[in-house]
């Protein structure tokens, strides 16, 4: 039996395994957004995903000794897991519409399509052979998959909430990629990205508000009835 174990693929180190697991959780939460049927659930999924990205930053900070990442982790936790969800929820509090069944396909087919798209992202990035000093390369592929699945989410869900959340979670994927490639990116740049996101949130919030006030629904299908 020992011989068989020796032939087997070696396991990544505990640090790599943990980082990859957190990255996989980020991707799974992105998939969860495909089937969320309440806007509260959608916003909570985004908050959970942001927590996972912050945890990843924390893991890198501890495991690789990059203390400024702690600041980034705390900032992104505050902004993306607390402030953005609060802003979204307060914009939508008095809205009675829901987002159930806004997918243009069934959930199972959406998941299959997203798996295919994610696979493309995975292996396209994997083929580049990028090696990072702080995080395993699989995390980079996973972040590419997050970005692509968020595109699928924005395309297939026909409600403004999912589309906005898809856009925000795209930013989560990008910040995960930046953790892999450039963990030592100057903090000021990272923080600038975060505040860019805040602007987007406010703009999207207002747009969603206007849309739901005018059409009494979150559905974008209703938009082409407004012509003329």
């Amino acid at each position, binding site marked *: *039996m020992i011989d*068989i*174990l020796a*032939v*087997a*693929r070696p*396991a*990544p*180190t*505990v640090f*790599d*395994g*943990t980082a*990859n*697991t957190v*990255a*996989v959780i980020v*991707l*799974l939460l992105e*998939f969860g957004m495909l*089937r969320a049927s309440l806007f509260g659930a959608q916003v909570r999924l985004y908050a959970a995903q942001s927590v996972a990205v912050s945890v990843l930053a924390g893991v890198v900070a501890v495991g690789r000794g990059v203390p400024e990442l702690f600041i980034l982790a705390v900032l992104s936790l505050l902004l993306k897991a607390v402030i953005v969800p609060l802003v979204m929820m307060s914009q939508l509090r008095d809205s009675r519409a829901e987002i159930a069944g806004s997918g243009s396909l*069934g*959930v*199972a087919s959406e*998941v*299959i399509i997203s*798996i295919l798209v*994610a*696979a493309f992202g*995975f*292996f396209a990035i*994997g083929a580049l052979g990028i090696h990072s000093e702080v995080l*395993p*390369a*699989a*995390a980079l*592929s*996973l972040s590419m998959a997050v970005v692509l699945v968020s595109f699928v989410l924005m395309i297939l869900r026909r409600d403004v909430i999912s589309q906005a959340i898809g856009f925000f979670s795209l930013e989560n994927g990008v910040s995960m990629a930046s953790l892999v490639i450039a963990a030592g990116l100057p903090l000021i740049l990272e923080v600038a990205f975060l505040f860019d996101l805040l602007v987007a949130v406010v703009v999207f919030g207002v747009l969603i508000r206007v849309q739901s006030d005018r059409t009494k629904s979150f559905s974008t299908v209703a938009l082409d009835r407004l012509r003329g």
Partner: protein
Amino acid sequence: MLTLSLPVIQALQVATIVFASPGITGVISRIEARMQGRRGPRILQPYYDLAKLFRKESLAPLHSGPLFLLAPVLAFACYLTVPMLIPVLTTYALPLGNMGDILGGGIILAFASFMVAAAAAETGDPYAQLGASRAKTFGAITEPVVLLVVFTVALVTSTDLPYVLAATVTSGPAQLVRPAHLLASAALFMVILYETGRIPIETHTGTIELGMIETARPFEHSGPYYALLKWGSSAKQLIFYTLFLNVFAAPWGLASTRDLGPVLFAIVALIAKAIVVGVVVSVIDNTFAKLRLFRITEFVSAAFLLAVLAIFTLYLGGG
């Protein structure tokens, strides 16, 4: 200390599964009842039920063939065979332990389920046939998940013998936190929820015929044959729990020698771990609603996603 011979341990593996399984079912229904604020049945109630059924007369529908009465016996024989293939009590392979891998065990379990479905089709009872056809339909869509889990195991250990995976998992923390292992375990757990007929797939104790899948199949059986089917489904549940626990999630507490003490400890440890899984299953039972029939595909696609991601991360060298 008394040293047991290998065939005795082999027999003990089968005996543990067969005789502990109604007790595990009893514990789960007790915990479930307690969580719902009921007193619940006695823990030993499944044994009393079986004893009662074995004393009863059995009847067969008028035009059913010999398969109707043969199927419960064959299915039960299958459930007696599988515990020989998986690590129930020991970390080392027993004499017959290497005669089949995880896929072999899966085929035997699938054969048992096919026999029960075929017997249900013999009856002419619409509900039994409904259950049988549903079980086969959803069985067909959970099959890819099981296969991908097996492929993950094969990629991790370069073999698909369950003993080797258990040894790999216990070899260090790096093996435990790798995403491929966690994802495959989670996917297997979802398959187990399906296979043992639990929420969110179906209500285990329900009597609503239209929602039934697994529980509708033995509708026409009675007496000792019904007892064998009921006993078989408990045994199947414990087999799946054992597979999940002793191969994937927690292969600790197994005997690594042939001494009596560790083997007895392994029996107790297995039952304790199975009860922990039972608690988790009861919590799921009480927190989620049953899925509508046509949303079961969503549940299966989620399990499929987990298994596919396990393979992806392995291929990228990150699993």
